């Protein structure tokens, strides 16, 4: 390898990363074309070629829109509940010490076990997906907010107090600016949680959302369309995550 090439690669690890991904795709392509039964796996070339066909399958665009809607609503509700509960609990030391263990306990439970109950309660339509997303996202946000309050250095509060700051001034000028990165970290975790919850519920049972189509493509042994649809969902998930992640970085500049 020439020196110039080596220098270029060492300064751009992203290029090597891309090369790794491409290598994996090539292995996948070869394996799918020549070694494995086409009923179970589809080569990436064919998947990409048929993305248009997936999109044209009746009901798929609508299903994607509905899923996006479920995600948006679940995220909004989780954020509102998560922020209010997180701040209310986090700022009051007694509430924090007694309530947080309960929240942690609930957060650690395998919520997937009660998914059937959510369906029974809310039906098989979007409301159950939204509700399941909310339960996943809210806990994550509450925990992130409380963690943010916990790492406010007491010396900053003492300093403000020594300069004569009132309670309101302390909240406005010390606590609030400190919490902004935590808000965004909470929203990032909340988005992950909501994605997980909504998608799990969709995969369980769905008549209008994309879960309906993943089931259909699986039962008809159509790996090409299935890969394609799931790739679209993965891209959607990555995009949503990226948006929240970038927002977090932008607002945490002072750290």
């Amino acid at each position, binding site marked *: 390898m020439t020196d110039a090439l080596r220098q270029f690669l060492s300064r751009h690890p992203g290029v090597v990363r891309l090369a790794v991904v491409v290598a994996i795709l090539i292995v996948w392509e070869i394996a799918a074309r020549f070694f494995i039964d086409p009923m179970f796996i589809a080569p990436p070339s064919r998947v990409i070629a048929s993305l248009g066909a997936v999109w044209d399958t009746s009901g798929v665009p609508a299903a994607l829109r509905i899923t996006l809607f479920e995600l948006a609503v679940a995220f909004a509700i989780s954020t509102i509940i998560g922020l209010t509960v997180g701040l209310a609990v986090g700022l009051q030391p007694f509430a924090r010490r007694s309530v947080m263990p309960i929240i942690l306990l609930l957060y650690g439970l395998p919520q997937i076990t009660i998914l059937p109950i959510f369906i029974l309660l809310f039906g098989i339509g979007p409301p159950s997906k939204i509700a399941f997303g909310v339960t996943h996202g809210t806990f994550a946000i509450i925990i992130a907010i409380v963690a943010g309050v916990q790492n406010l250095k007491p010396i900053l509060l003492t300093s403000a107090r020594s300069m*004569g700051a009132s309670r309101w001034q302390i909240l406005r000028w010390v606590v609030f600016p400190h919490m902004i990165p935590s808000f965004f970290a909470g929203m990032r975790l909340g988005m992950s949680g909501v994605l997980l919850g909504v998608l799990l519920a969709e995969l369980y049972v769905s008549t209008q959302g994309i879960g309906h189509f993943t089931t259909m493509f699986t039962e008809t042994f159509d790996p090409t369309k299935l890969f394609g649809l799931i790739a679209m969902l993965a891209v959607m998930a990555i995009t949503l995550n990226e948006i929240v992640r970038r927002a977090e970085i932008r607002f945490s500049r*002072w750290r």
Partner: protein
Amino acid sequence: MTSRDAAIRIRGVSHQFGEAGDKQFVRALADTSLDIARGELLCLIGPSGCGKSTLLNVIGGLMTPSRGSVDVAGKPVRGPMPRDIAFIFQENALFPWNTIVENVRLGMLFQGVPKSEHETRAKKSLEAVGLAEFADHYPAQLSGGMRQRAALARALSLETDILLMDEPFGALDEQTRMILGEDLSVLLSRTEKTIVFVTHSLGEAVFLADRVAVFSARPGTVKKIIKVDEPHPRRPEFVTSEKFTALRNELYALLHDEIRKTVSESASARGGG
């Protein structure tokens, strides 16, 4: 010293943490009385845990003593007195999400300085500490020494008569301490502020103070007060003079046993030597 000259009067202050019999019980400060004159710079020096920081917090109204009282400018201290007292802490107390100038202005907002004066005061104090060019930087972008200068600027802009400094240079390296000490002396020779300064460093105490109060080991009380009769601003040559060395040696002699006592106490508390 008459009560008119004394900016700060400390009467019989003692403090303990917890109740006798508690696992966490600590007698931090034993019966301490002291008068601090207007315009003087008094250093509190002593072994770790002797209560000098506790005393500083009591003077500043951040802590109520178990016993005793403090009068500042003739008034009894019952809580923070932001119009009269400004603090500088060892730990960095600048708000990391604000720039330097925003930090300075925030202090004035808290104290209640009218908005119209914020700009001029901030500019003046930043120039006084030599940070005028860094006004729009964030604390994370500055060195430790510059951060403490910024903390000083914030305190100065509050235009209080009294400045309480708790080991402000403790986290800095020797060279930065030296420079900051000299600059502090120059700065303070121009103002009439009363300053109480806690430090661990013998050289720093002799260089900066008009008087040095030496504390005994815990529970601390004032063992002896040493006078440093040298005009401000202290010149760098003072440090190499015989007078300086003699004073420093005196401090060393007073402190050495107290420090040994403290170290052996804490070692035996941990079950080993």
